[in-house]
């Protein structure tokens, strides 16, 4: 559906997107992840034909976005960051304008509008002025606009930005539902969102792709995956040294002491479980152990690891 090869965008004095290549297959929900200023919005603006790339190419459903921009744009439903809307229009009126703009006429437009209103839960708001809507409803109007012409591809730039938890949950559910019949590219920096909705994640940092895989695989391949917290009744220094000697343990951090109990965070190599070794060690030394708990790695760990390392170039 999307084919990007060697896409570069240079602004005066800085490179926003640096020779990135990726594909998005039909039917996928792909998360576009990265810290602020990583080049997500720039990439999306290139993909939607709003600005050209400095070099490289981008194909949408087989159409080059620069040479056949109108044909490509017809296939995209795009919701920009912050959802710009006309405040002096009514919801229905705005959606009608957008439907006509996207080449829908007569009955087709009418049905498209009705479906989009229904799908985004805007029935009660259809006659309200956009200027009077809450942020959550504005977001939904933006989404309704993006999917009104039933495009093959939806590109959503930070769709849950600035929403409250209930609204986020609703938008997420909607995206999942839309994912059944559309290809979706979501840009976001909210990790739980990606973990819950996306089939595949592309992590972008300083204009370069750092990783592109399923959320599960990314976590599996993480170097410092997860950690174990333990609370043990032993002399802190001796216990720490003993635990450190267990093979595959990378780091032991003393968190706090409460009378004779000490709390540690233990980090081990990715894909290994050292809990058994710790219990064995405690038994051998006759240390009382009142808590041992493994925290699995999250996408957040992957994100932090990939985007906090110093730039390689």
């Amino acid at each position: 559906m999307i084919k990007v090869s060697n896409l570069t965008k240079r602004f005066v004095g800085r490179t926003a997107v640096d020779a990135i290549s990726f594909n998005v297959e039909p039917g996928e929900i792909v998360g576009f992840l990265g810290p602020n200023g990583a080049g997500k919005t720039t990439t999306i603006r290139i993909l939607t034909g709003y600005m050209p790339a400095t070099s490289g190419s981008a194909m949408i459903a087989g159409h080059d976005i620069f040479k056949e921009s109108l044909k490509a744009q017809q296939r995209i439903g795009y919701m920009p960051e912050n959802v710009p809307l006309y405040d002096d229009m009514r919801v229905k009126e705005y959606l009608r304008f957008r439907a006509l703009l996207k080449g829908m006429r007569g009955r087709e437009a009418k049905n498209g509008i009705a479906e989009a209103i229904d799908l985004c839960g805007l029935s009660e708001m259809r006659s309200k002025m956009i200027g009077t809507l809450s942020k959550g409803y504005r977001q939904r109007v933006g989404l309704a606009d993006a999917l009104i012409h039933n495009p093959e591809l939806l590109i959503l730039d930070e769709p849950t930005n600035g929403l409250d938890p209930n609204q986020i949950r609703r938008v997420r559910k909607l995206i999942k539902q839309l994912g059944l019949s559309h290809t979706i590219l979501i840009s976001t920096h909210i990790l739980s969102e990606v973990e819950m909705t996306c089939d595949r994640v592309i992590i972008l940092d300083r204009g370069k792709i750092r990783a592109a895989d399923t959320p599960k695989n990314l976590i599996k391949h993480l170097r410092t995956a997860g950690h174990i917290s333990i609370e043990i009744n032993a002399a802190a220094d001796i216990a720490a040294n003993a635990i450190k000697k267990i093979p595959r343990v990378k780091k032991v951090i003393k968190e706090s002491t409460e009378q004779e109990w000490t709390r540690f965070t233990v980090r081990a190599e990715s894909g290994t479980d050292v809990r058994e070794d710790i219990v064995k060690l405690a038994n051998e030394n006759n240390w009382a152990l009142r808590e041992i708990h493994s925290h699995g790695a999250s996408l957040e760990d992957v994100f932090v690891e990939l985007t906090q390392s110093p730039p390689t170039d």
Partner: protein
Amino acid sequence: MAFTITACVLLGIIILCLLKFLAGGTGLVLLGKELRSFFFSPIAWVVLALVMLLNGLSFTAALADLREGERSVTLTAYTFNSIQFWLAYFFIFPVITMRLFAEEQKLGTIETLLTAPVTTIQLLLAKYLAAVCFYIILWLPSLLNFMLFQMNSTDDHASIGSLAGSYTIILLVGMFNIAIGCLASALTKNQLVAAMTCFTFCLLHFLLGFILQNLSVPDAFRETVTHFSTQIHVRAFIDGLIDTRQIIYYTSFSVLLLSITYHVLEFRKWKV
């Protein structure tokens, strides 16, 4: 000969642009939306009311003066050469053009517009033509004044030729100044800056000729510049002299200004 060729080329460009604008009906959808945003905002009604008031005043003043006795000027000349007319003339253009592109850029809606299957030329012409349509509507009530007068008068003070000339030049300078406003609005996100820029350039164009009067420049130069002055054109047309040179001048400059605006809007597509 050269004149005919220029006219033909100009006509060709205009027809070509209009065809592009009408392709697929998208241009008309945009035009409808623009007209709607004129008449659903208070600006249109305030401007319409003020222009009607000023026109009414200048018309009444002209009638009052003509009642005093024989005068060497016609009713139309009186009406369209009054202070009220020029006052309206200067505030109309900044007010109706300032929001055209500046507002879209400020709201960010320019992004949703240009990522829909819309070409820049369709967007530009929709906005320009909407402003021109609104401008035409602004002047229609004043035409009513003359028609009422004509119905109740045996005199020929408002002759057809003079009226035709007046409204032709009003349309021509309108198209030209709205094109200036479009360009000013496309250059900034700030509506006030757009309005001020538009006002300044409209004024400068009006004052061409005056500015040089007290400066020591060669006579030939002064004379050449004076040819471009709006005020002189307006006077000639009001007398019923429909001069094709001026028609070509205003139309070609409108096209030039709009093409500059087009390139300003396309600037984001430049590979810098």
